[in-house]
């Protein structure tokens, strides 16, 4: 009985420490102090998923982002190719521990998910949503500013990458069209 109790307490504190550690290693929360991380820990939501479970679907209204604490996530995009009438699911990438996804929903107003996220194995995700971010900004603005600055950096990087890819695609299209 005693062992059971101690085991339980130990596990709980271990889980808390793990969560703190995972948050602290994430790019968005990297600049936060220990006290600020503890504050953020009280805001996030830990969710457990079975293999093959859908985290969100493309087209749904997104409320926030997820950070992978354990397991992995497949990002899929539903596409209707020009030559085929049916929808086709295209595998985009597999994300692992420490990766995060869906961060655009933190700044969008009723924004739609642009892809579907499905767990490939048993997965634990840390959900961080728009209302959580707003509450952090309201209650602890200095922490909020640090997170928002990092978030802006991430979104900026993603935009830059997208611009490069679009430019490449345009160039490729032009090349294809110029071919005799």
């Amino acid at each position, binding site marked *: 009985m005693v062992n059971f109790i101690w085991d339980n307490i130990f596990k709980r504190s271990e889980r808390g420490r793990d969560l703190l550690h995972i948050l602290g290693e994430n790019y968005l929360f990297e600049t936060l102090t220990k006290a600020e991380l503890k504050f953020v820990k009280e805001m996030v939501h830990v*969710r457990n998923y*079975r293999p*093959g*479970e*859908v*985290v969100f679907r493309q087209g749904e*209204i*997104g409320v926030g982002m997820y950070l992978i604490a354990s397991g992995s996530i497949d990002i899929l995009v539903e596409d209707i190719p020009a030559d085929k009438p049916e929808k086709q699911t295209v595998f985009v990438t597999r994300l692992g521990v420490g990766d995060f996804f869906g961060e655009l929903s933190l700044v969008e107003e009723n924004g739609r998910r642009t892809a579907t996220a499905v767990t490939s194995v048993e997965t634990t995700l840390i959900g961080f949503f728009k209302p959580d971010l707003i509450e952090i900004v309201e*209650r*602890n603005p200095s922490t909020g500013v640090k997170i928002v600055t990092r978030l802006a950096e991430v979104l900026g990087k993603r935009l830059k990458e997208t611009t490069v890819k679009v430019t490449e695609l345009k160039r490729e299209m032009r090349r294809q069209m110029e071919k005799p």
Partner: protein
Amino acid sequence: MAVNSPASREQILRRQSLIRLGAFLSVLALALLIVVKVENMLVSCLLSFVFSYLIGPLVNYLERRGVDRVLATTTLFVTIGVLLGLTIYLTLPMLVERVQIMQTDLPKYMAGITRLVESLQVKMRFLQGIGVDIDVSDLIQERVMPATEQVFGALPQIFKKLFTVLLLAPFLAFFMIKDGRHFSRTLLALVPNNLFELTYNIYHQINDQMGQFVRARLMEAAIVGFVTWLGLWMISFPFAEVLAAFAAITNLIPYVGPVIGTIPAVLIAMVNGASAVEMSLVLLVYFVAQLIDAAFIIPVVVAKIVDLHPVTVIVVIIIGAQVMGVLGMLISIPVASALKVTIGTVFRYLTDYRV
């Protein structure tokens, strides 16, 4: 069927989702049952929500200034408690005196009202010619008088209930502010994964809207009450404070409330044999208070928060009154707007699916 086949996996996920949804709804239903069935719990809970919506932003402000949340909450509750205690201590003798005067004067006022109705009835004799025969004065003597006396008789019981509610509500509000987030997170942890974002979104929309609604309506009631008191005090009308407080409380009921709030003052004026000018002045006071409310407070603070059509508001108030009486009238609008948010968000989620 193999255990790891997609079909069986889907089945397991669906079953797990249903179990979690069942657990979540059961906890909600149990909480609702406790709130409704346990004596004084509903009013205490509603009042504690009002307190937490009022004090919550102040706690956040102190937290922003670097004060620990528990310390900020405790300091604010102690300060408000001391201030309220002092106010009650200082005003209680005057309030008791007013209530005693009202209790003593009640038969006089009721007799006056009966006289008024009798004279009105004499003037309306022509209705008997078309088969309508209502003896309003008898009706008042038989029904209203005992009911009013009953209210005054039940005053000790009402004060006892009020005392319980006033002790329980701040206690609940304190923990709502201090640990509200922890409670909601624990409850939301039960929600199935596929419904989590939707539920969290609805919860926050309702919470935000309720907070804004409660703050706006209380501010509105306070302004209407103050303007009414100022006006009645300026024309030296009796029971100005009690009538202003009554007008402020009834003003919380849209459309019907302001009319109900005016009735006691008009009756008192009629019984006291007020002249046409005096009566006009009394009505002008209430009219100005409503004008300020309609022209400045409602368009600026209230209308943007709860976007319900006037017809919906009236229907909802009637339903509220029939189900829960005065309390139902007071809470019908926030409940209706919460339902509107929920239905709207769920509907959008289910139908407005875009790729």
